[in-house]
Structure formats: structure tokens, C-alpha cells
């Protein structure tokens, strides 16, 4: 079964499961999926084949958009994405996200290319309140480059919204962003209090410190070690 067939089958189930009335789903070409929504624009996504060897690069992105110009979202499943893709995607009028993101976008966004996860909205707001972060640039699914004022260097961080950060999740996050020089991993869940011994040890071994969002914000005005 291709990833397109799988996505279509699961999206049909999602529509039924969520009780969204009148939405139908159909394939477009070899990689496209279209959700027809009564009274709203169609939501079109491009299904990227999973690949644990080859990254999803800007060139592949441009080929995808060329193949399916009406696509609003590039649906990535189990494939490392080149950070440059997240710069190029908005220029091409598309959003890069997962099947979960596409499903939520079908349900709640008239224009799926403008989809934003709630964590991104929250993180951008918290960064703007610091008044030292001058811009937040998306560099990965949940990875961000933070430009800072006062001649402070930029920081590259990964965010994670779970209350508990486990050693397994930490390893998965590192594997998800092999091309990014990470300065920190930040837990955005406001209920998070701290970290287990095992994951703290792992973070020390690889030199990527862990922060709750409040602790990160409290240090963001200082030079980074």
C-alpha cells in the first residue's frame, strides 16, 4: 500500500470519527489527497513517501509542488526534512506538516496552507513577550531559530509539548533534526516541573540542555554558553 492510499483511508476514518458532515476524500494523481468540504475550499495535500535514507529536500519539495500545484500542505511521514524546506515552503504557498496536522487543518482551516499548530502559536507569543527575541524562524517540524537583539547570537531550539520528557523521546527528537546545531530542548507544557535522571544524563552526554519554557525564558536575555 502506498502512503497516499494509507493517508486517504485514515483521513476517511478521521472524517467519520470526528463527525464532520459532508466531507468526502479522493485521490489526485500519484501523491495527492483532496478533501471536498461543503461551503469551504477543497483541502489538498501532497503525501511524501516515507524514507529513512533520503531526506526531504528543497528540490524534492519544488518537484512536489510542481506535480500538484493546488496543494496547500506537504504531508510528511517518517522522513527527515532538510531545514531549508521550511524556508522555501511559504514562498511556494504551502505548509509542511504531518498527517495529524493535515487532519486538524481539514477540520478547522479554510486554507490548509495557513495551518499553525497551537504549540507554535503559543511559543511565538511567549518569545515575542521576551522583547529580546526579534524573530522566530521555523527550521523543523518543532524546531526554531530565535534571532536575538543586543548582539546576542541566534539560538536553535526544539520544542516539545509533553509533560514528561523520556529518554526515548529525547533520542527520537535528536534523530528528527540531524542537521540542526541544537542549543536547547524546551518543554512548552506549562505543567512540566522537571526531568528524570536518565534523560538529564543523556542530554549532558550530547550537550543539548533541557529547559522548561519558564526557565528558558528566564535565561534568554543572557549570552549562551
Amino acid at each position, binding site marked *: 500500500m502506498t502512503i497516499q492510499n*494509507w493517508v486517504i483511508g*485514515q483521513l476517511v476514518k*478521521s472524517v467519520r470519527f470526528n463527525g464532520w458532515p459532508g466531507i468526502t476524500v479522493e485521490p489526485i494523481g500519484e501523491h495527492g489527497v483532496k478533501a471536498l468540504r461543503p461551503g469551504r475550499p477543497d483541502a489538498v495535500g501532497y503525501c511524501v513517501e516515507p524514507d529513512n535514507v533520503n531526506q526531504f529536500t528543497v528540490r524534492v519539495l519544488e518537484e512536489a509542488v510542481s506535480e500538484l500545484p493546488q496543494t496547500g500542505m506537504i504531508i510528511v511521514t517518517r522522513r527527515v526534512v532538510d531545514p531549508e524546506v521550511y524556508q522555501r515552503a511559504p514562498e511556494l504557498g504551502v505548509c509542511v506538516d*504531518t*498527517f*495529524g496536522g493535515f487532519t486538524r487543518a481539514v477540520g478547522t482551516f479554510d486554507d490548509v496552507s495557513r495551518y499553525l499548530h497551537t504549540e507554535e502559536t503559543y511559543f511565538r507569543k511567549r518569545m515575542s513577550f521576551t522583547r529580546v527575541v526579534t524573530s522566530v524562524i521555523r527550521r523543523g517540524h518543532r524546531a526554531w531559530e530565535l534571532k536575538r537583539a543586543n548582539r546576542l547570537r541566534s539560538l536553535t531550539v526544539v520544542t516539545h509539548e509533553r509533560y514528561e520528557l*523520556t529518554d526515548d523521546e529525547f533520542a527520537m527528537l535528536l534523530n528528527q533534526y540531524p542537521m540542526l546545531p541544537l542549543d536547547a530542548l524546551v518543554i512548552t507544557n506549562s505543567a512540566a516541573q522537571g526531568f528524570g*535522571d*536518565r534523560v538529564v544524563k543523556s542530554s549532558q552526554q550530547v550537550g543539548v540542555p533541557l529547559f522548561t519554557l519558564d526557565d528558558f525564558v528566564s535565561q534568554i536575555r543572557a549570552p549562551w554558553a
Partner: protein
Amino acid sequence: MGLKDRWPILNELCQCADLFPELELWAFGSMLLPRRPNDLDVLIIYKNRCDVVALRDMGLWEVSAPPVDIIAMTPDEENHYQFIKITNAQRLHPPA
């Protein structure tokens, strides 16, 4: 109706987990409540992380409706967070 009957993908996940005798699977979160869950939260307790990686690779669990959201912990991490107790998790596999 049991969780694995209500959500066949959990049954599939447990069948795959049969290949890894040291893994424990627990259900927690919104699927334990009467309302419609956003996702199917599954805790995996593992001793060897390779088992978790292999189990994940056996299906597109996160690309499902509703998505299966896996969190994996070692026994000492579970003990640190008291996760099973705090979430009132229900054992899925192996049967108690």
C-alpha cells in the same frame, strides 16, 4: 466492550508486541473516558530501546484515526514519574 475491541489498532499493536516479551503496553489518557478521544495514548515500558524502535517500525501508528500516541519509558522513568499510578493506566499487554 474492551479497549482492544473498541479500537482494533490497539489489538494490532499488541499482536506486534508479542514479538518482544520484555515490553509492557498500557492505555491511558482520553481513551479511558466515555467521550471521544483525540488520540489513543499508549505507554510502553521497555528494558531494551531496540524493542520499542522495532515495534514503532511495524506500523504507521501515528497515521491512523484516531492516531496512536506512544510514550516509551524505562522502568526507572516510570517510577520517577509514577506514570501508571497518576494516569490510572490500564494494562493492555501482556494480559495481567
